[in-house]
Structures are given as C-alpha cells and as structure tokens.
C-alpha cells in the first residue's frame, strides 16, 4: 500500500474517536442534562415573570421599593467594580512585571475571597463594624453607619468580587512579559505613558472581560450583602434582597418579575462574554486557563 492509500483508510474510520452511535448518545446525554438542569430554571424564571402579562411585570418593576433596589444595586456596582478594576490592574502589574519574595503568598491571598462563604464575607464586617464590635461605640458616637447601611453593602460586595479582575489579568500579563514596556521606557517614554499606551492596549479586552464578570457578581451578590444590609425596604435592599423579601411574602409574581430583570443581566453578560471570547480569543488566551 502506498502512503496515500493508508491515509485514505484512516479517513474512513478515525481510530482516535468513538463510533457514530456512541457520539450521538454522548451528545444527546449532555444536551438533555443541560436542558433539564441548566435551562429549566432560567425558563421558569422568565415564564413566571411574565405569567400575568407584561402590564403586571412592569408594575412590579415600577414599585417604589423595586426602583430603590435597582438604584442601590447600580450604585453598589458603580463603586465596587471600578475599585476592583484598579486593584486588579495594580496587582497584575506588581505580580506579572516583577519578581519579588512573597509573590505566591500574595497570589493565594488575592484568591482568598473565592474560598470564603459569602455569608462569612458579610459576617466579618458585622464583627468589625457592628454595634457589638470594638469599633461599634466609636462609630456610633461619630454617627458613622456602616452595618445595616450602604457602606457595609459596598464593602461586602468589594470583598466578594475582589479577585475577579486580577485573576483575568495576571496570567495574561505574565505571558506577555516585559519586553514591550522595556522598549518603550528605553526610548524615553515615562512610566505612566508606557502604561497607558503600551500595556493598556495589550490588556484591554482581558480587562473588559474581568470587569464584566466582576459586574455580574457585584449586581447579583446575595449572601454577603444579606448579612450586612439589615433589609430596610427602600434603603438597604439590593435587587437580590428585594427578590427574597417578595418571595417570602408569597408575592411570587413580583419576585419573578424582578428576577427576570436579573436573569436578563445574566444573559447579557453571557452574550458579551462569548462575543469577547470569539473575537478576541488571542488577547484573552492566557486568561482562559482557569
């Protein structure tokens, strides 16, 4: 047999794969699992949200408490996400561009919030700033409210979303190395000029990716925020907390209406995330390894 004939034999039946029946069975099993398990809850939210028609849906969202919850959620995300983006860039700059002692320890500590229960993330702030804490009497004397107020919600959200941007940027910037920055600096550019004109364009898509994930978590965070919020309607209720209150009051239609809004945010996040992955796969490549 010549070489060509051998390769044709292989083309007919790929020895390094499963048979047709096995393939179809595995794909079907995966599809059924996803449909029944991942999609069903999402479909239920949307169906229940619109069960009583669009008028009732809009009415639930126009409720003053719902409007206040939406505003608070946006405010919290507007503070927590930029903060974590700046910290993420700073952390990635220090870790990826320099070699120093304690680097691995720093990496582990940045990831720490991922392995702490959201409820505990809220609890630590209650223990630090709550009425019974060491700081409590002093805060009260100076009329500073942190727990059961907006600052506590923002702090707990920052805690929970702390690693998101850093995690995306560190592997990418490590793989990019320092040669481009070195070239820019030797040609006389300043440090900040180099950062904004050399580094930032290289990491912008990964930064956006991290911000996107950070934002989705910040707007949807429930456990940590629930502990520090105090559930004061119209004042310290974010959207997820508002959903819980409505649900516990058996106001399911309104609960699912607000939930539909958050599910829409999740879908938008997924679409943007996939678009970034498809169009800028190369600029995200190193960040995809986790």
């Amino acid at each position: 047999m010549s070489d060509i004939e051998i390769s044709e034999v292989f083309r007919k039946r790929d020895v390094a794969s499963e048979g047709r029946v096995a393939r179809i069975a595995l794909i079907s099993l995966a599809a059924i699992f996803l449909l029944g398990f991942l999609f069903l809850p999402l479909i239920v939210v949307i169906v229940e949200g619109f069960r009583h028609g669009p008028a009732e849906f809009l009415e639930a969202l126009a409720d003053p408490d719902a409007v206040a919850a939406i505003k608070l959620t946006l405010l919290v995300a507007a503070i927590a996400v930029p903060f974590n983006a700046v910290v993420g860039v700073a952390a990635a700059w220090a870790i990826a561009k320099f070699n120093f002692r304690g680097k691995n320890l720093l990496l582990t500590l940045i990831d720490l919030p991922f392995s702490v229960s959201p409820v505990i993330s809220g609890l630590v702030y209650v223990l630090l700033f709550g009425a019974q804490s060491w700081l409590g009497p002093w805060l009260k004397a100076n009329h500073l409210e942190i727990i059961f107020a907006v600052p506590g919600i923002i702090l707990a959200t920052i805690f929970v979303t702390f690693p998101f941007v850093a995690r995306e940027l560190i592997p990418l910037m490590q793989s990019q190395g320092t040669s481009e920055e070195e070239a820019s600096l030797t040609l006389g550019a300043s440090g900040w000029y180099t950062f904004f004109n050399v580094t930032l364009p290289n990491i912008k898509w990964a930064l956006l990716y991290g911000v996107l994930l950070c934002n989705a978590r910040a707007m949807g965070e429930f456990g940590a925020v629930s502990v520090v919020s105090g559930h004061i309607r119209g004042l310290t209720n974010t959207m997820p907390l508002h959903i819980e209150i409505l649900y516990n009051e058996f106001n399911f239609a309104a609960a699912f209406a607000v939930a539909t809004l958050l599910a829409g945010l999740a879908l938008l996040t997924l679409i943007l995330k996939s678009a970034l992955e498809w169009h800028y796969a190369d600029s995200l490549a190193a960040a995809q390894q986790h």
Partner: protein
Amino acid sequence: MALLLPRLREPSVIPGFGLALGFTVAALSLIVLIPLSALVLRAASIGPIGFWAIASDPRTLAALRLSFGAAFIAAAINTVFGLLLSWVLVRYRFPGRRFIDAAVDLPFALPTAVAGIAMAAVYAPNGWIGSIADKLGFKIAFTPVGVVLALVFIGLPFVVRTVQPVLEEVEREIEEVSALLGASRLRTVFKVVLPQIYPALLTGATLAFARGIGEYGSVIFIAGNIPMVSEIAPLLIVIKLEEFDYQGATVIALLMLVISFALLMVINLFQAWSRRRLGDV
C-alpha cells in the same frame, strides 16, 4: 549597605513596583485580611469552653455535616457530568456546540437568589418537576436532595472550565498509537486519555466542592431550612446573627473556614504527591 541586605525583588527597569504593590497590599489588607482576622480574634476571645459548647451543639454538627456532605456529593456528580460535557464540547463538532459552550457559564452569571427561587419553582411539590416526583412518591425540595441539586447547578461550570482546556491539549497521536497497538476504544479512553486529565478533573471538583460548602443564595429557597434536616451551615450563621448570637455565628464561621482550608490543603498535597509519583502529567 544596600548590597548586604537580602534582595526582596530582582532589579528591573520597569517603574511603579512600589506604587502597584503598595496599593494592592493596602486594599487587600483593608478589604480582606483585617476583616478576616477580626473573625479569628473574635473567636479566640470566646475561650475554649464556650467554643466547644457551640461547636459540639447537635444543630451545629448537623448543619456542618449537611453543608460538607451535600457539597461532596454534588462535586462527585459534577465530576461525571462535567467530564461528559467537556468531552462532548472538545471532541465533537455538532450544531449548537458554541451555544452549549456559552451556556455552561450560566450558573456563574445567574445571581444566586434568582437561581434559588427558580430551583424552588422547578422542584417544589407543586413545581414542574417536583409535582412529577411527588406523584412518584419522593420529595426533592425541602430535603437534603434539594440541597445537592442546587449545588450541582452552582458547581458544574467549575469542572467544565477546568477540564476543557486540558482536554484540548491532549495529543491525538497517542490515541492513534494505542488503537493501532490493538487497544479497544474504551480501553484507550480509560487507560490513555483520562489519566492525562485526572489532575484537572480533581482540581475542578475541588473548586466545585469549595464553592458548594459556602453556597447560600441558591440553596436556602429549595432547602426548606428544617433544623437538623435541611439547614446548611451558612444559613445557621445567618440565623445566629438574627438572634444576635454573635459568638455562635463566629464559631460556626471559623469551623467552616478551618475545615474547608484543611480539606483543600489535603487535596492539594494529594495532587502534588500523585504528580510526583506519576511524573508531570
């Protein structure tokens, strides 16, 4: 003088080390480290007798057992289905593959409270699947089974996203060699391909397990929160806080952290040990 000091970092022409590291460490300390140490200090101030009294309370033990047990079972289920999904996504080309690939991240993106009420609506006795299960004579919601289901939902992407890139790197030539040497397809998959991705599979399962232990929002609606039966540890912390029992909340939180860090360390050591034994795979 400067030369005598041990070098803290290698020299570099790139500026901004002090600023970037200083800002990172300051933010990390203020947001994460100081609040977490407040928890440890607070627990230390309770004293061993009080600590033991809360730690050995049957309700505490039941909640911890449920949280860790359900997270473990969910991680095991996710190991199987996560591997299946990664395999299908990496090895096969079929219509809708990109869509499924994107949809795997849904549990990451969907707020946990939304997932929670949705799971409750699906699996409650009057829900879409719950009513069918009810007719067949078993309950899902308000039992530990419901807790496990919620944790499977939350943990799935961790396994898929960890295994997928490693599976993509597996060299197909080795499988051809195995087939040409006479191994059946099943034998090739289990003896040649899967051993290469076991470390990634274990890492993914560990991530799902760690997330499951602390999960709150997606569980509380479906769990029914019956003390000693379907009450998870994070919920017990919230209940203790609502009763202004700060000591109780602190002790349970510290127990959760210590047990989960100890387990994660054991798993990491096992990973390192098996890597050394099998060579770097």
